[in-house]
């Protein structure tokens, strides 16, 4: 039996989760929500996380009905993410690891999503689409690495959606992406937008600039509604994601797709990916918002796999890094 506590706070969510042998015992989380029209800044986000992290930690232990003595390993997000919030979380993880006399383990944020996705969905060897506010990657496991077959060459798809939400002043509660999704359901008119797939890679910055300008022009002259723009943006972005995922599946001979990351919550994206998978005779796996969205349990789960296969992070090596490529980690826990 191995129990791992995981700390995650690389963006505007702060969570602490506890996993024991494939079971999530607790997973409390808080979200730093900014006013409409504003994104979250690193120093303010770190301040929010500092204010709540010990409360969330206490909740995690209480909900799991465990004491520190029961914990075998302390896992935290080493990166990638925003610098100041990452440091906040690492400080607490390092401190409790020393107080409790437990080993420390730095986890890659992306691998946290993948391992939680695999645990919850039981996907065997899927092509992974990892989509969030900070990342957009198509990943497949091969020879002890989670290899990046395709990715965004500029901004993440979630970043594109979030920044468009700012332009039209959508609420950030519970998340701008969720609110775009709800508005898109009421959209009726498709506005043509740039389609910028580049082989296995994608680009979103041009689409964002285009729709920002379109929003100013078309909304002020009543040529379309904000709902139409949300609908059109989703159709375009998600079609691009489906295309690069399908290309990776074809290349690898994969029969499974797993969507992870915050944008993976989007039901329209799941629907579109589901249609493609069905046509290919493949299976689609996705999780709900408990695990799609950044959370502590995903770090605990990846930490559990890593710890049991021999990974440990020395305190002197426990620095955070804003850039930590998914394929940098040696995956010693898979065959």
């Amino acid at each position: 039996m191995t129990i791992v506590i995981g700390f995650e706070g690389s963006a505007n969510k702060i969570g602490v989760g506890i996993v024991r042998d494939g079971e999530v015992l607790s997973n409390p989380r808080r979200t730093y929500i900014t006013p409409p029209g504003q994104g979250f800044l690193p120093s303010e986000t770190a301040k929010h996380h500092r204010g709540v992290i010990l409360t969330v930690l206490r909740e995690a232990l209480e909900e799991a009905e465990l004491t520190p003595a029961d914990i075998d390993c302390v896992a935290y997000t080493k990166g990638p993410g925003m610098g100041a919030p990452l440091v906040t979380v690492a400080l607490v993880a390092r401190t409790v690891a020393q107080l409790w006399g437990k080993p420390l383990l730095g986890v890659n944020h992306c691998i946290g999503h993948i391992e939680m996705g695999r645990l919850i969905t039981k996907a065997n060897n899927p092509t992974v689409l990892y989509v969030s506010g900070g990342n957009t990657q198509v990943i497949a496991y091969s020879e002890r690495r989670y290899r990046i077959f395709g990715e965004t060459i500029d901004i993440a798809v979630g970043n594109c959606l979030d920044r468009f939400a700012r332009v039209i002043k959508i609420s950030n509660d519970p998340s701008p992406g969720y609110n775009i999704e709800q508005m898109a359901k009421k959209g009726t008119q498709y506005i043509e937008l740039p389609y910028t797939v580049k082989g296995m890679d994608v680009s979103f910055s041009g689409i964002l600039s285009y729709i920002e300008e379109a929003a100013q022009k078309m909304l002020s002259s009543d040529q379309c509604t904000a709902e139409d723009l949300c609908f059109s943006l989703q159709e375009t972005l998600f079609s691009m994601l489906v295309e690069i995922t399908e290309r990776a599946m074809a290349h690898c001979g994969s029969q499974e797709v797993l969507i992870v990351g915050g944008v993976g919550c989007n039901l329209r994206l799941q629907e579109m990916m589901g249609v493609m998978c069905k046509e290919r005779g493949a299976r689609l796996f996705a999780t709900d918002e408990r695990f799609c969205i950044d959370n502590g349990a995903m770090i605990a789960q990846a930490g559990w796999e890593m710890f049991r296969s021999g990974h440990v992070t020395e305190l002197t090596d426990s620095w955070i890094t804003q850039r930590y490529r998914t394929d940098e980690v040696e995956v010693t826990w898979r065959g």
Partner: protein
Amino acid sequence: MASSDLGTNNHTEQKLEFSLEVPLPSAREAHIALQSLSPDREPRKGGITKKLSASGNMLSAHWTADEARILRVSVGSFLDHLSLVLETMDAFGPPAPQ
């Protein structure tokens, strides 16, 4: 705190310096705080250095910086981090026996 000499007449440019000493309840806790605060680099490249050490129950920090603004940001950030480490030790301590 040393002042900066902005004169140009045969003077080497001097750096701003700041030292901070924080007593912890025990040497063990000073060591834990040091180990928690040490690994991360300064976010900005150049213009600032920070050295941390512990002696007995005393945690020491020493900065050198080119500009007052950079120094203030770094010291402010360190104090936020130190505060969080102290709160964590207060809430989840005392340290397990070694």
